[in-house]
């Protein structure tokens, strides 16, 4: 895709004035980093970071049968999500293959917002459209209706509190409420993809710059810095969170990805993928093909997606994501490996880094968990 076809967020001029290094991410021209990605990562772990996530794909689902519809179209029990709460879930094909992982916010009794990955938003939109036939619901493409800013890190509640009267203390993790931030109407959600406490603010694109500036000023004393997608990736990797196209794809079911807990067989009614997922659940229980594990390097060379995982000179798996971990000070990776080598502490596991077998320790995920 040439740069002329890239989509730009409402904050594009702000990123350029901050000297951001930009990158093509799923057809969007997004900030990769503003300065050192390691410094940005550590700011989120210890203070706060400000992200532009306007590439995420918002889809609004409304109508009297919205709850029943999403229960049928997605693997989770969406009808049981209370108004003002959110749920991490997935949409799969009839064969159980993952089309995307999603966050679904229930905004009102008959109104939901589904947030898809930028790379999959059209696929999700098409699937929801197709599955909505015959039901009293409207599926609306709201990708251009929102800009999305995230404030993440331990200092984020204090920063946001200085700009809003909303009851942030009453706002639990995976909840969202409408409010006003710095005079701007926003859906304030306590969600994120960093492993830290934090907020995601859905606002109209025309308010994005104003809100960004207000957050920047409010966060100045607390050490808030603008953060790009590069540190977002290392933050989520340390937190053991999957990324579509890496840990998740259409050839894997949620059970293969170790995320079978998002599939709610007990919910009312049939849902797309149910029969295939019943089989996948049994297979994962009795005879798992490969298991998603964490790997920590003993040396300093960095594993990358696609590198083979080896034991005794044999390929036993593949790296799905890898990076130097700023928190651990060592390279880390997520990888699918044969079940026989998946137990934490398994000896003799390595990663083939461009022809050299570097030793790695098998660990349980996540690599990092914040102290609450």
């Amino acid at each position, binding site marked *: 895709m040439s740069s002329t076809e890239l989509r730009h967020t409402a904050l594009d001029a702000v990123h350029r004035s901050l000297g951001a*290094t930009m990158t093509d991410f799923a057809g969007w021209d997004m900030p*990769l*980093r503003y300065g*050192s*990605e*390691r410094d940005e990562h550590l700011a989120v772990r210890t203070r706060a970071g400000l992200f532009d996530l306007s590439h995420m794909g918002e889809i609004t689902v409304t109508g009297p049968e919205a709850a029943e519809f999403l229960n049928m179209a997605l693997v989770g029990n969406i009808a049981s999500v209370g108004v003002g709460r959110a749920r991490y879930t997935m949409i799969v094909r009839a064969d159980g293959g993952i089309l995307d992982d999603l966050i679904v916010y229930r905004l009102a009794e008959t109104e939901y917002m589904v947030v898809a990955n930028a790379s999959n938003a059209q696929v999700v939109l098409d699937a929801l459209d197709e599955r909505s036939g015959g039901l009293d619901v409207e599926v609306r493409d709201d990708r251009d209706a929102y800009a999305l800013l995230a404030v993440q890190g331990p200092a984020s509640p204090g920063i946001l509190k200085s700009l809003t009267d909303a009851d942030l203390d009453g706002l639990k993790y995976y909840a969202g409420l409408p409010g006003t931030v710095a005079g701007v109407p926003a859906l304030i959600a306590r969600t994120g993809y960093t492993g830290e406490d934090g907020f995601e603010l859905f606002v109209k694109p025309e308010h994005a710059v104003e809100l960004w500036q207000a957050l920047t000023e409010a966060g100045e004393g607390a050490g808030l810095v603008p953060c790009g997608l*590069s540190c977002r990736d*290392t933050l989520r990797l340390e937190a053991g969170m999957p990324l579509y196209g890496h840990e998740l794809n259409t050839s894997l079911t949620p059970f293969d990805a170790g995320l079978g807990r998002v599939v709610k067989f007990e919910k009312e009614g049939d849902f797309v993928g149910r029969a295939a997922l019943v089989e996948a659940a049994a297979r994962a229980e009795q005879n798992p093909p490969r298991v998603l594990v964490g790997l920590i390097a003993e040396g*300093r*060379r*960095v594993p*990358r997606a696609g590198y083979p995982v080896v034991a005794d000179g044999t390929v036993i798996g593949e790296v799905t994501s890898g*990076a*130097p971990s700023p928190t651990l000070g060592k*390279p880390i990776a997520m990888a699918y490996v044969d079940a026989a080598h998946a137990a934490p502490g398994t000896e003799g596991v390595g990663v083939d880094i*461009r022809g050299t077998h570097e030793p790695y320790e098998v660990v349980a995920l996540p690599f990092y968990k914040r102290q609450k």
Partner: protein
Amino acid sequence: MSNPQQLRYSKEHEWLSGADEGVSTVGITEFAANALGDVVYAQLPEVGSTVEAGETCGELESTKSVSDLYSPVTGEVTAINENVVDDPSLVNSEPFEGGWLFKVRLAGEPADLLSAAEYDAHIAG
């Protein structure tokens, strides 16, 4: 960003110092360091080995990628910067000074290198 006048440059973004008793210092430019992002691992050529102009002689890993290190000249490696091996972030913070990579005894007069002005034009293009 300013590229020091006294250095010469390769199109692969290495710099070469003037020779001191036949030995020159090699590093990567600030432009290259910025493009890589935080360097986390430097694999440098071995002392005593011969590097060839335009050939790979090591690699630099950053958060997002791994990049080959090209030698701008042919010669024998006389020293490597152990400080960079211990703390690769020096490549980002002091690309033209403390972040130098290796020293090489020139086997001949370097060819096809750019002046600072020519390199400025190269990266602007």
